[in-house]
């Protein structure tokens, strides 16, 4: 059985790289991957996050004012969309 990860999708490569900068500064683990075609036809990048660090990651990104477009729970080629709380404006 493939391991479970969370996939974070953003509106553009700019936002992905902003997220990368925030997570690097916060010392939170992440991986940059091509956007899985199962969830988004973009040619861009996405963040892969360990499920047990997802809350910290979401908090750090939201605090930095980033808008996360979508989060998916991934197991192999199986994707489940996870509703996110609306960002504070």
């Amino acid at each position, binding site marked *: 059985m493939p391991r479970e990860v969370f996939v974070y999708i953003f*509106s*553009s490569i*700019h936002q992905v*790289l902003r997220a990368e900068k925030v997570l690097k500064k916060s010392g939170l683990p992440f991986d940059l991957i091509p956007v899985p075609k199962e969830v988004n036809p*973009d*040619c*861009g990048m996405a963040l892969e996050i360990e499920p047990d660090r997802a809350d910290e990651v979401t908090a750090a990104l939201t605090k930095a*004012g980033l808008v996360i477009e979508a989060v998916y729970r991934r197991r192999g080629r199986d994707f489940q969309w996870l509703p996110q709380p609306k960002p504070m404006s």
Partner: protein
Amino acid sequence: MSRLIYCDQAATSFPKPPAVIEAVTQALTEFSASPGRSAHRMSLAASRTVFEAREAVAELLGVDDSSQIAWTLNVTQALNLALNGLLQEGDHVLTTSFEHNSVMRPLSWLARARKVEVEVIPVPPDGQVDPAEFSRRLTGRTRLAVVNHASNVVGTLCPLKEVKKALGGVPLLADAAQSAGAVPLDPIEEMADLLAFTGHKGLLGPTGTGGLWVRRGLALGPLIRGGTGSRSESEEQPEFMPDALEAGTPNTHGLAGLAAGVRYILDTGVETIRRHELQLTKLFLNGLTQIRGIKIYGPSDPNMRTAVVSLNLAGWSPSDLALALDREFGILTRAGLHCAPRAHRTLGTFPEGTVRFSFGVFNTAGEIEAVLTALDLLSRRRS
């Protein structure tokens, strides 16, 4: 040939910091791939380069959201983007009689093509604009005001904060061609609503780099549409920044250099650069008063200008003087109208123009002395 003295910084800065050359070389040799498109490591390195360049410019402007900066080829394209993107049929726009053709030509076209009403505020010959001139001309149709932050002809600085206040909410587009990297632009949000800049002058980057900063919440249409690497399923241009205003593969190699140039400025400090350039300008202006037949244009207070000095020498045409300086002394200047015929009419120097000396962070007091000596020698004869 003996050493050159480069006094044409207002056109393109020279030399560039070594870090700029290294960054362009690294981009060309190590990750010459498309940013924001593919997802392999070389494309990612290119994406990070473009991102870091945006972050560097954002830091220079004192803004935290670098996605509000869209890349262009130069400041002319940035100004065209802003003017074309904002001004619609029947709009009223304010500008001054001290602007470059990069503003006057698009406005002239918009007046014809979209019936935009262009109102040109006359400024006195020193170029110093009274902010109250803007407020008294506001109408219900005034969509925008556009001014240069510093004149490319005589260096006059515009009090952007005061002009912005006088506009009472009407957006201000600032042309920072001559000021970016030379005078503080932080925090830009107090000075303008849109800022057009170029990378190849005071920001010490390569040609082919520039951009437009747009205040968040101010929407404008793009100049061109096309691939962005985002929303690829759609045949419509995305509406989020910066993709809304950018299309096609950007000048990654140039932006690598621009990022290094801006980092150099941030590390040195804009205030330090300003002090150095002001010192050179004062030295030059003081020296010029000792030379017979020199006429200096622009503000009498050097604190009111960037390191740009326009002059004429009795008995010499601007082009002959510039040629003699180049051929005999290796001193490189720019003669003529400087793409700003309206500014030269305001100065009373149309159509012959002036000889413009412009200094930068790498010019030295020794070079200024050498230029003064050359001008003194030339003042003793005629062309």
